[in-house]
């Protein structure tokens, strides 16, 4: 990985190259061992960014391998991982590299693609000025009214993540927060405060996937991919979907239906359910996400997430440790790289290389990402 942060003097190529070199060193491989590559970058880098894999392969040295560029917004990185998994699992190639790299603007992520009156994303900025936290706040308030979620519950999500991040040398923000500190941070989109929302940051992660046979050559303890999932939304999803102006809610459809679908697919393909998971990296874009995803992924029933969090069962020694890395709360979000950061953490945990934040005895773990307009991907790992 390339560390998370703001790097105004670097390009997405610089970040991607460094991430690849670090991954090759970790695996004990050379660039010329890589037989295929799937790459994703966000929208800030023109044609070079659309073709991020090709841009980065040019720097690494062109070898003529198949390169696919993937764009699935915040689920981009996990989508590159799924495609790389299929490349190897199908038998087409033995060694495939998945890359996610991102340089984002500071602050609220602005509009992309000009003033197109038939683009809902333009209209939501132009006519409403609704920010991403604005959408999340609309959902969060409904949750508060439905289940009695309190501000303290929301603050606890940040506190829990910050305790883990403090133990992670890779984390960008390593301060342990108290509930009071979170509740005294400035209000951004009521009821969400500054410390309940993740920042945007830059970063890159490369992951090398290979067949079980090949893996034996490079390591005595490979981490196995148990299953992957990729989901899109269901008709009638009640979520006020980020980037749209309207939602047609149907009562029998789960909210964040794309995430429900991707996690269900990951459970089905892996044969491993939430009750067997030793840890999960979930997308804590906001404190609302932290709570909602515990339910969407099936770690508890509707309205039970607050209690699960308050009981300490999502801490490192709990029943289901959540975001042992510290999550987005301690890294910020590098949109098109975030999913692979989660996978990086799950793999490190299953290898037992996480030092003070190690989840003891971790054998099975899950990474789950969320993106706008009905995008979500997941992966389950085991040793």
């Amino acid at each position, binding site marked *: 990985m390339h560390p998370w942060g703001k790097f105004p003097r670097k390009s997405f190529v610089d970040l991607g190259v460094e991430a690849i070199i670090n991954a090759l060193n970790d695996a004990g491989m050379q660039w010329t061992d890589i037989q295929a590559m799937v790459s994703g970058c966000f929208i800030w880098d023109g044609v070079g960014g659309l073709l991020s894999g090709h841009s980065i392969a040019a720097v690494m040295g062109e070898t003529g391998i198949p390169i696919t560029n993937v764009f699935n917004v915040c689920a981009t990185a996990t989508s590159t991982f799924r495609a790389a998994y299929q490349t190897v699992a199908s038998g087409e190639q033995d060694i495939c590299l998945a890359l996610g790299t991102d340089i984002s603007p500071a*602050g*609220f992520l*602005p*509009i992309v693609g000009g*003033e197109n*009156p*038939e683009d*809902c994303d*333009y*209209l*939501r*900025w*132009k*006519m*409403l*000025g*609704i*920010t991403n936290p*604005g959408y999340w*706040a*609309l*959902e969060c*308030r*409904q949750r508060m*009214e439905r289940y009695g979620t309190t501000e303290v519950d929301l603050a606890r999500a940040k506190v829990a993540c910050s305790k883990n991040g403090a133990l992670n040398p890779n984390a960008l923000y390593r301060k342990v927060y108290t509930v009071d500190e979170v509740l005294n941070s*400035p*209000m*951004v*989109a*009521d*009821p*969400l405060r500054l410390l309940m929302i993740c920042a945007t940051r830059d970063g890159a992660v490369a992951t090398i996937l290979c067949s079980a046979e090949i893996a034996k050559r490079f390591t005595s303890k490979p981490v196995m991919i148990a299953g992957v999932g990729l989901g899109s939304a269901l*008709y009638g999803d*009640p979520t*006020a979907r980020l980037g*749209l*102006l*309207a*939602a*047609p*809610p149907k009562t029998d459809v789960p909210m964040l239906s794309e995430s429900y679908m991707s996690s269900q697919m990951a459970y089905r393909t892996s044969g491993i359910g939430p009750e067997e998971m030793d840890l999960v990296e979930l997308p804590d874009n906001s404190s609302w996400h932290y709570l909602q995803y515990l339910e969407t992924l099936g770690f508890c029933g509707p309205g039970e997430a607050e209690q699960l969090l308050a009981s300490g069962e999502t801490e490192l020694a709990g029943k289901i440790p959540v975001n042992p890395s510290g999550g987005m709360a301690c890294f910020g979000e590098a949109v098109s790289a975030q999913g692979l950061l989660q996978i990086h953490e799950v793999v490190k945990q299953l290898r037992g290389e996480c030092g003070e934040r190690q989840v003891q005895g971790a054998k099975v773990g899950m990474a789950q990402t969320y993106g706008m307009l009905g995008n979500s991907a997941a992966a389950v790992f085991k040793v």
Partner: protein
Amino acid sequence: MDAKKPRAAVDGLFTMDPEEPRLIGGKCSSCGSYFFPKFYQTHKPTCSNRGVEEVLLSRRGTLESFTVQHYPPPPPFVSPRPFVPYGLGLVALPEGINIIGIMTGIAVEDLKTGIEVELVLETLHQDEKGNDLLSWKFKPVD
């Protein structure tokens, strides 16, 4: 000097009726789904036709949720200076569609879910010549 004339900040989203403005949505004649804006279609997967007719959506609905944004959004939104925190509401219309709109006619501290609101047109900002550019907003019904 020309008289200042209000116009829509973006055309085609609502009628310019000063008394009873309506959002211009779409409805599928086959599966019955409603859309807003009308170009962003969401049909039932089993829809047989995917045809769309233009419809004017109900003016009144129920406030399902709301937020108050405390920081100025980035362009193209034009914020007043100095910036004043403003409310955004999620409004359920009888057609079975939820619409997001800026809240007006109520102090942000007084916002609460469950109240009945109606659509009005109000100035979003002014153009360089001082003409009012309008958007839809939701206002509590007295």
